[in-house]
């Protein structure tokens, strides 16, 4: 089955986010899930019961922000609302958005 250009991320409270596959692959976690033997790879649908829609939305936001800016210099920082900073930090840790993401490998 040829991979679709988009994948679906599902939050713990049931919200679905359709994301550009290429953008979501910045996360090694998602990349791992989409490798062939897993159900996620066949359905293109990843469920994250750990996160609610608000956090996941921000993460998805970041995926696209990263995707948009991956070849640019001096990128303006993405706004992080202070109140969700810690939760987002947890999410960043979960999604392995840690070190410098390697653009396209």
């Amino acid at each position: 089955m040829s991979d679709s250009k988009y994948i679906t991320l599902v939050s713990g409270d049931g919200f679905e986010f359709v994301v550009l596959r290429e953008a979501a692959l910045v996360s090694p976690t998602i990349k791992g899930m989409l490798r062939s033997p897993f159900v996620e790879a066949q359905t293109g649908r990843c469920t994250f019961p750990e996160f609610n829609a608000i956090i996941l939305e921000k993460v998805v936001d970041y995926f696209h922000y990263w995707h948009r800016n991956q070849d640019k210099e001096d990128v303006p920082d993405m706004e992080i609302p202070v109140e969700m900073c810690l939760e987002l930090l947890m999410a960043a840790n979960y999604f392995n958005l840690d070190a410098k993401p390697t653009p396209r490998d």
Partner: protein
Amino acid sequence: MSRQGRQPRRIVGPQSALTDFLASHNISAYQIHLNADARRRAARDEQDEQADENNQSNDQASEASEASPATTPAVTASTGPTTRRRRAAAAAAPAQEEEARKKEKKAIDKIKASKKFQKRKRGLESEDEDDLARALLQSSAPLPGQQENCESCGKRFTVTAYSRNGPNGGLLCSPCSKELDKDNAAQKKKPKRATGGAVGRRRQLQSNILDGTYSLGAKSLMTLCIETLAKNIDLAEDLGDLPSSIIDKIARKLSKHRLLDSRTLSLFLQPTAEEVRIYDGAKLSSDDFIRIFQTVPGLKKLKVRNGIHFKDQVLDFLMTRNIELEDLYLHGANLLSKGKWKEYLQKKGHALRSLRVYFTDLHFGDEVLALLPTTCPSLTRLKVSHNQEVTGAGVAAIGQISTLRHLSLDLRNEVHSDIYVDVLSKIGAGLETLSLTRVREADNTVLDAIHTHCRALAKLRITESEEVTDAGFARLFRGWANPGLVVVDLQKCRHLDSARPRDNPDAVGLCSDGFRALMAHSGKTLRDLNVHGCRHIAVGAFEDVFSNQADGKVYEAMAKLEISFCEEVTDFVVGSVFRSCPNLRELNVFGCMKVRDVKVPRGKILVGVPNAKGMVIEGMDDSDDDEEV
């Protein structure tokens, strides 16, 4: 404000402080005045119309009564502006009317003669002098005090010269104008983003390159979060159960802004932790340091930078606890006395595996070092940096620590090479790290001792020696039974002669032969090479080393190369370096004046190019990247 509305530039006499202040903020008092005039005139016209409808004769009276305050303030003091309309409506007696008309005539004449009028006449080019004069007369009527209903909230308020117009042309009371201001401010702020223009951006870019934070693309989400968190650390009460690696990152970020104090320290003290790293303890008191030991009973590794208040009483407390530190890193703890150091080592030294002491002047000296071999039987790492007290005797004592694997010294006192040779002959065989910073008198005998005794070295640093020679380096690296080094720092090992700087008849310092031998021995494993200021390495040596990829001279491991102030380095050498070190991330070429115009491959950083253009990156087009990556 429109250009026409502005008054032509003129020389003025002394002004009031307020006018000066407003002018400095580009607010013209004159303009405000004109606006108020216009408004007043509009209000007047409207009122006139109304008055016309009601009673033709009232008009004149009302005008006169309004005009009077300007000309004869004493008279109108009793007749307040609030009574104006009532009086107008009451239809004054004809005699009074006559009197008022006279008054007005008089006032108009006076105005006509005034300078202000002449100026105004020129500006407005009005034909009818009387009209103009009357307008002026009205405008000089005191607006403050006039009452009006606010357009937005309908409340009655006193009009001032600063009252603002609402969206429908009416006047606003001051609370409502503030609301309006707020809305406007919000609109104004948004589009204004600090880009700093092209120069500012380029400057920021160069700054990032020097900071080592330069990278293509967006920051990682974690970095973004940590930065936000650091900015708002006051709001955080508890970091929750974040992994310790993240907590460490937050700690580093905080120290950058010197934000760690008694309050924020608690965020980083997790009772279950084995390691506490304080990157900037400048604001912590002795009690705070004691609190670390109270909250983290299982502490094994402690790192404190700028721990000024890490004093005797802190060590005293530590000695009363069951905490046995394995790793102690103290930076700037200058208030610890010699006696306390000795006491601590005797009591708790047996557990120590790593001891690193930075920036001390008086109390960490030979006597303390002399204790180490007996009190610390499992010490593997010893670093004494920026120390003013340790002399040769102390260094000689280090030779007795047979377990040592990592030795790093940066002393202010000169230590003779014989002592280093002695130490190396005793413990050199086991050493993995040997770092001798600023050893002016170290000579070839030290290099020979390394060659003879060291078999496990991975990191070698010998800097600022003025005695070692090229032949010494060549002897060290040729046929050395030590496996390839990973980190080499030989910066500023060079001949110094201010009279004839270019001549180096005795081949002092790292020159061509030594460099060739070094790269032949360790090139495959080297990750980080620093030959900063070794300016007698000839261009031929660089070319031999870096431009023969065909012969297999490719340095896969090399990530960071520092060749600043190597005068012979050319564009060709830099290009060759990029070709022969595929995994290079950063190349420093400060002071390499022959480097002029190099294209830097994507993802690599060239620092210190001596031109204003900075680094030029090759292959900006997206199509190129795809092929390259």
